[in-house]
């Protein structure tokens, strides 16, 4: 039986969900028996080389690059999973959603206490290489269709493991009360 192919990414997140994923400790040995990684920071494959079975997405969308990556994941993954609060509802990056974008950028680059007087050119970073920031931070499911959602900030390691195991084996997933948490 061929291994299930998994891709992972961190969009507007803190990599905490990936860290939690690695917290499965010795189960990682079981994991590599079960799955093969494709595009993922775990194996550092930058671009999809084939269709994947499962895509794990950490973080929401705060810029156009996030949107492109997420759409790329949707196109290359049969099943797409939002992992963690940022992917599910924007999370901490979405705290900026209550501030108008212009005000937000001006505070960060022109007027904020740590920059005021230090940004002589008065330029808000605009290099063409930089992604364009979106008006709001969007949860993943408001951009593309997401199939499953794992709550938590980050989701507990055992939740990620159990969910992945269930998806790979097709076994039903039981979500114990202690594991499903929004923080």
């Amino acid at each position: 039986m061929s291994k299930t192919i998994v891709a992972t990414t961190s969009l507007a997140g803190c990599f905490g969900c990936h860290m939690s994923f690695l917290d499965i400790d010795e189960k990682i040995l079981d994991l590599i028996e079960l799955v093969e990684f494709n595009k993922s920071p775990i194996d550092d494959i930058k671009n999809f080389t084939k269709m994947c079975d499962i895509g794990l997405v950490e973080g929401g969308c705060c810029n156009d690059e996030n949107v492109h990556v997420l759409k790329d994941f949707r196109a290359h993954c049969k099943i797409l999973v939002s992992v963690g609060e940022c992917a599910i509802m924007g999370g901490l990056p979405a705290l900026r959603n209550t501030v108008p974008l212009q005000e937000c950028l001006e505070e960060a680059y022109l007027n904020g206490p740590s920059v005021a007087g230090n940004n002589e050119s008065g330029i808000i970073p605009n290099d063409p290489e930089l992604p364009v920031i979106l008006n709001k931070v969007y949860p993943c499911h408001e951009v593309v269709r997401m199939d499953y959602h794992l709550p938590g900030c980050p989701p507990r390691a055992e939740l990620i493991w159990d969910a992945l195991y269930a998806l790979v084996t097709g076994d039903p997933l039981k979500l114990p009360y202690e594991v499903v948490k929004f923080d």
Partner: protein
Amino acid sequence: MNQLIKFKIDGKECMGEKGQNIVDAAKDNQIYIPTLCNIPGIKPRGACRICTVRVNGRLMTACTSPIAEGMEIESKSVDIENLRKAIIELLFTEGNHFCPSCERSGSCDLQALGYKYQMLIPRFKFQFTDRAVEASHPKLIKDHNRCILCKRCIRAIKDEKGRSLFAFGKRGHHVEINIDTKLSKDMTDEQALEATEICPVGAILKKERGFIEPIGQRKYDKQPIGSDIETLEH
């Protein structure tokens, strides 16, 4: 002793005292009906609608409706539970509930109901409403992002003359809760704590206090909401 009344909840025979509302009577019979805006001992208001039950084909709020002899109450049917879940999702999307950064996380009633109903993502779009955090009060922080407009503070916190320290402002989806700066100026620490505790979420916080209980020991970390009333399967 008041007159005893027989009624049924989801087919289970129950007994209660005349004049009791359905939520309290259910509790006495070890049946949990979820509530958010209800406060034991204070006149109910039926604002959040979470406790909706069906009686004779009609939906009504269990916190405001008294039991009656022979009443047959439907509480855990699929459509009513789905309705409650929908209301929780509406509250989550209406405000800005960033659980990971909230002092109340772990002992928040809204979050606990989200857990109970296994809300993974809300079916509705997040509104990302523009709301303020007010920190000008000497004793309290009011974070409007987290307010679910349940009116608990309005109904519970009064001064010695019975005047309200909190009140609604505006109407419709612009509704907000305001605090009377003048009356609450001389609020004691006890009153500030009371206001914090009366709030089911983290919208009213006493200053210089937060994250008191460590993660893992908070109210709803291990036990679902309502498990003090009814043993719930989970």
